[in-house]
């Protein structure tokens, strides 16, 4: 079961940004950070720590790095420092990040 968001969303914002989270549709409001959008969306973990425990965004000001997430193919991006954008593809990271594969590897 997906835990409900731990936050109430104020109705004072206009506009909507369409993104995906692990391939599923996710909407946010313009001007939000990725981390805020995820917290508004659900109360579930958005990342695993190095030892595999669940984490969500924590400090919201770029200090703690608990909001790391893959943004448009870029792993370990700080979600609290990244503004949402239409078409953005987010992926929650499980385990350590990978490296970009070169063509030769494929």
């Amino acid at each position, binding site marked *: *079961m997906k*835990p*409900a*968001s*731990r*936050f*109430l*969303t*104020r109705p*004072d*914002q206009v506009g909507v940004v369409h993104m995906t989270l692990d391939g599923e549709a996710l909407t946010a*409001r313009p*001007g*939000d*950070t990725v981390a*805020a*959008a995820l*917290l*508004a969306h659900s*109360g*579930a*973990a*958005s990342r695993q*720590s*190095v*030892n595999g*425990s*669940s*984490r*969500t*965004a*924590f*400090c*919201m*000001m*770029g*200090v*703690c*790095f*608990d909001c*790391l997430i893959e943004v448009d193919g870029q792993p*370990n991006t700080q979600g609290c*420092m990244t*503004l949402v954008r239409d078409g953005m593809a987010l992926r929650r990271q499980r385990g350590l990040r990978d490296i970009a594969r070169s063509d030769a590897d494929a």
Partner: protein
Amino acid sequence: MRDADLIIIGAGPAGMAAAATAAEGGAQLLLLDEQPRAGGQIYRDVGVNGDTRPFLGKDYAAGRPLVGALDAPGITAEFGATVWRIETGRRVVWSRDGISQVTTAHHVLLAGGAQERPVPFPGWTLPGVMPAGAAQILMKSAGLLPRDAVLAGSGPLLYLIAAQLIDAGAPPRALVETQTAGMMLGASRHLPRTLRAAPTLFKGLALIRKIRAAGVARHTGASGFKAVATENGDIEFGFTAKGRAHRLVTPLLLTHQGVVPATHMSRAAGVAHDWCEAQQSFRPKTDTWGGTDAPGLHIAGDGAGIGGAEAAQAAGRLAALDILHRLDLLGEEARDQKAAADRAALDRALAIRPFLDAAYPPPREFLAPEGDTIVCRCEEITATDIRRSLDEGANGPRQVKTATRAGMGPCQGRMCDLTVRGILAACGTPPSTPRARSPIKPVKLGELAALASYQETST
């Protein structure tokens, strides 16, 4: 040939006030901030929120003129700009959109502000536990309101957030305070001096009245914090107060034990620091203008010692006046004359500080935790791990770090430096300031490599 007269790092109250003063005095300056918009954390997004969030209060709205004043000739403001290295030669290396650049200036003013003091206890890494200030950032920047939250800890910010939530129609479920009547009584010896800060004190009392009137459950003298996740993802928050064990279930546990100077940047820049016992934090050594022992480097605002937004603005203007003087844009006498009002404002703003520091001291269980409590969130190093390294001969922050990996993750120790220091002190090791190095925020190898060619072509 320098790129600018002055580089100001941080567009919070200190940086914004300094920028306006320096620009007015004729300096060409570059203002860098990592966030997408001006304001710092205290005035976060105040420029774009307009009147849409009145529950944030008048003190928040007071930041709007500072943001407006940045639109002045002489000020180039860059946002989303992450500074990752400051050199004593007054070169600042910063990154934006994946590209790093080197900017030189005659002077650098650090106005990086504060961060919340880490509040480690069993379960503080669980989803559903956050710093209270982080929730307030979400209230300001995203219009998100904590749902049925429990506020736990100590300090004026807890009252403010509780009051803001009440005004926003989302009152907290409970307020759990670690401070005791004894602490408040001990702090009262600072009250005579505090009378000069009576307005601040009255504001605080008004907040507490509002919380009482709203019927928010209040516990004081709480200790023994522990959080566990329930089956449906809520937090079961356990603590002891007045000799009784309590359990509160909440979607969101918001903790707070005050804020501390964010010293990573100043330490990495080589500025001398000392330990501030009253604020239980590292603090750069500064003179009355914010000048440091690093040539050309000033520090203003909460990054030089916690004083709050009004003190930060005054300190920012004082630093700007001194820098204008050093740039030969302002005579010494004129500097001192212009500084008089700011010095008075600074004194006024700081008058309440000794009372606040004494009334809301962080309890020992958070300063020097024990057992399985995680100290380093990145590497998941526990208090027991830290203590064991001390038994094996680590006798300072550097050896604790290399022995345990505490502080080696991406946050580079921002979330554990103070706790490691607290455990060292509790075990009898004299405190020393941990060293910080560049890059003070992670930077991609490709970005760093591109800088190699930049330097070759530019020198």
